[in-house]
């Protein structure tokens, strides 16, 4: 045991107000994670509606207008409600533990940045019950669909986006300030665990692009209500401008959703390969390179909008350049496993699936980056397959891997390994059954965001729907596993994973309410 026997001078507050008033990074981390899990099921049930409608050709269950609302809300809720808060939750729990800090630097702001979110999403989801329906213009909300032709509820959507943006920005500021100022004495930047590094870079991306998102929705608000013409051609504006400003935000945004997953995997793979991470420095520089490149590739989403050949070439080559630092990372993960003494507990299974399936998503991304080929792929299910491969077995598997990996430290109990393996294999089969056939129907020309399709796509769509039902239902097992662990799991050891390194494993199990009240002394690695 460690010398960690000091009396806990005060524990968590009593009663439910603890969760509202808390400024403790562990409580807030838990709140974020639970919130994102709820949003995963809300967004997932919308995916259920989509896949049920697409189960067979023709219109069976919902009217096209409602189908559009489902695709839009599914995207918005999964991006802003499930994936992003989950990573902020992991950061809240892990960043202070991993750098030896007693808490986040700005605990009161931490509380505020979480508690904005339920209100933002309550507002967003309430649009489903408004006259005219919820936003139905796609998660990319291109003007003029989202301005001139939008349902009246678009104003609520805009304010919800503003609130989510403020929450993300506050969270990012908190993380940067914590990492820069509260590391254990003697921990240099290049000593930080990779999860901390990837979050530091992610937080800077958030600071840089969330205000641009705020700007673009503010312009929409002004176009709709105050008679401006930012995106209105009749008044001298330009709808294409919207797409440029939006993707200037949204391309870095997709890296915001995956860089922390890179960090999680970079923690897990060395643990279960029982070898230090291969190429730590190149991992850091590759992450920085990906972040910098993310700002100059945005128009690859707009090849078909109309661009001079020089523009197409520029955005094609810069996009392909991103494959280089990403390839470095994949190479390093594989090299870390090479000749390691590997075991395959649930977190490692999810991490390996992340590496394999994220790479598939990356490769279809390279295909989409080829400007002349993109004219065929654009707005087909091939695009849907691509971004779901990087987001679901990418980001979401990264989050799940992180939860399994750190759960024993968080709650002091071990999850049921057998159920964890079941969860993994059902998810793995479900995710591939859902998204792999989308490649084929996409290449054959099935357009995205349409509630019906030509008959020749019927078989693959049925497979996709069955896979989606399997994958979605399997996540109920995940909830069951977590609840079972917290309530009746076997006590976890101080170091639940044999090969785990890092400060977070030096605190007792479960991690006490207050850790590192005195800074740790950094010894051997």
């Amino acid at each position, binding site marked *: 045991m460690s010398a960690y026997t000091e009396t806990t001078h005060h524990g968590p507050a009593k009663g439910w107000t603890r969760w509202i008033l808390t400024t403790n990074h562990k409580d807030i981390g838990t709140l974020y994670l639970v919130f994102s899990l709820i949003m995963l099921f809300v967004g997932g049930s919308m995916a259920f509606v989509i896949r049920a409608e697409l189960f067979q050709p023709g219109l069976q269950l919902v009217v096209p207008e409602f189908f559009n609302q489902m695709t839009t809300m599914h995207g918005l809720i999964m991006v802003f409600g499930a994936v992003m808060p989950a990573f902020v939750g992991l950061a809240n729990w892990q960043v202070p533990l991993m750098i030896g800090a007693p808490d986040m630097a700005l605990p009161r702001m931490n509380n505020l940045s979480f508690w904005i979110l339920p209100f933002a999403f309550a507002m967003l989801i309430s649009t489903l019950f408004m006259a005219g329906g919820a936003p139905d213009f796609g998660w990319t909300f291109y003007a003029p669909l989202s301005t001139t032709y939008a349902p009246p509820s678009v104003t609520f959507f805009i304010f919800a986006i503003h609130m989510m943006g403020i929450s993300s920005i506050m969270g990012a500021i908190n993380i940067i*300030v914590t990492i820069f100022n509260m590391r254990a004495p003697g921990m240099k930047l290049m000593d930080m665990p990779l999860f901390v590094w990837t979050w530091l870079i992610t937080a800077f991306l958030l*600071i840089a692009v969330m205000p641009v998102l*705020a700007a673009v929705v503010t312009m929409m608000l002004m176009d709709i209500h105050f008679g401006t013409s*930012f995106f209105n051609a009749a008044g*001298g504006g330009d709808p294409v401008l919207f797409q440029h*400003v939006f993707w200037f935000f949204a391309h870095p945004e997709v890296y915001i959703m995956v860089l922390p997953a890179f960090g999680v995997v970079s923690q897990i793979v060395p643990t279960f390969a029982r070898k230090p991470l291969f190429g730590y420095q190149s991992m850091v520089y590759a992450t920085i390179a990906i972040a910098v490149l993310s700002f100059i590739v945005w128009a690859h989403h707009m090849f078909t909008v109309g661009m*001079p050949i020089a523009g197409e070439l520029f955005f094609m080559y810069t996009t392909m350049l991103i494959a280089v630092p990403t390839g470095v990372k994949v190479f390093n993960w594989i090299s870390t496993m090479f000749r390691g003494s590997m075991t395959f507990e649930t977190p490692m299974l999810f991490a390996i699936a992340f590496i394999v399936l994220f790479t598939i998503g990356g490769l279809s991304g390279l295909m989409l980056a080829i400007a002349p080929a993109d004219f065929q792929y654009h707005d087909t299910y091939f695009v849907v397959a691509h971004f779901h491969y990087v987001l679901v077995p990418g980001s979401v598997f990264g989050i799940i891997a992180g939860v399994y990996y750190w759960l024993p430290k968080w709650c002091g109990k071990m999850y049921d390994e057998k159920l964890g393996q079941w969860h993994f294999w059902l998810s793995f089969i479900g995710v591939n059954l859902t998204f792999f056939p989308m490649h084929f129907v996409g290449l054959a020309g099935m357009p995205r965001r349409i509630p019906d399709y030509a008959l020749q796509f019927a078989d693959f769509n049925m497979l996709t729907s069955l896979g989606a039902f399997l994958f979605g239902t399997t996540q109920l097992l995940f909830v069951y596993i977590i609840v079972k662990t917290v309530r009746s799991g076997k006590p976890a050891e101080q170091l639940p994973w044999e090969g785990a390194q890092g400060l977070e494993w030096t605190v007792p199990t479960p991690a006490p309410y207050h850790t590192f009240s005195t800074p740790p002394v950094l010894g051997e690695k």
Partner: protein
Amino acid sequence: MKRWLKPSTPTGLMLIVVLMFGFGFMLVPLYDVFCEITGLNGKTRGPYQGEVNAATNQNQRMVTIQFVANRNDNLPWGFDPDQEEIQLQIGERKQTTFRVSNTYDQAVVAQAIPSVSPARAADYLNKVECFCFQRQPLDAGQSKDFPLVFFIDPDLPADISKLTLSYTLFDITNPASARTH
């Protein structure tokens, strides 16, 4: 740099946030400047300011200009060019008209937005007078011929022999009414 302004402090980071919010809005004029410099987007310029002197022009090259009139959002108005195609000598000053008919039983305001294809020809199409420079009020049921006076700059790249000037007509009577489809 002052200590509290560093990008490791809340104030320094808030400054980045404010600057990036401003940058989001800066993208609007930057986009226009970028399009103007590169000649992208097929946007034509405002009224031609210089002298038009066809007599000094020795260029005998002929080009074809086509006129296209579109109504935004399937507006049930009339909007047609008087001539669909004109052959003219480069540098030669020409006049043509577009006819707009308001089919509504109320007064409206129309605005035409021009666009030139190929986009790099946009800079060489000089409009001396164009109905697109102003908003055009029309009475209920009124039809009106709107003039366009233009010439093609003699520096038009040699490989362009045909260009299209397209107008899209918008109903801007009541910006809010546009949202009711």
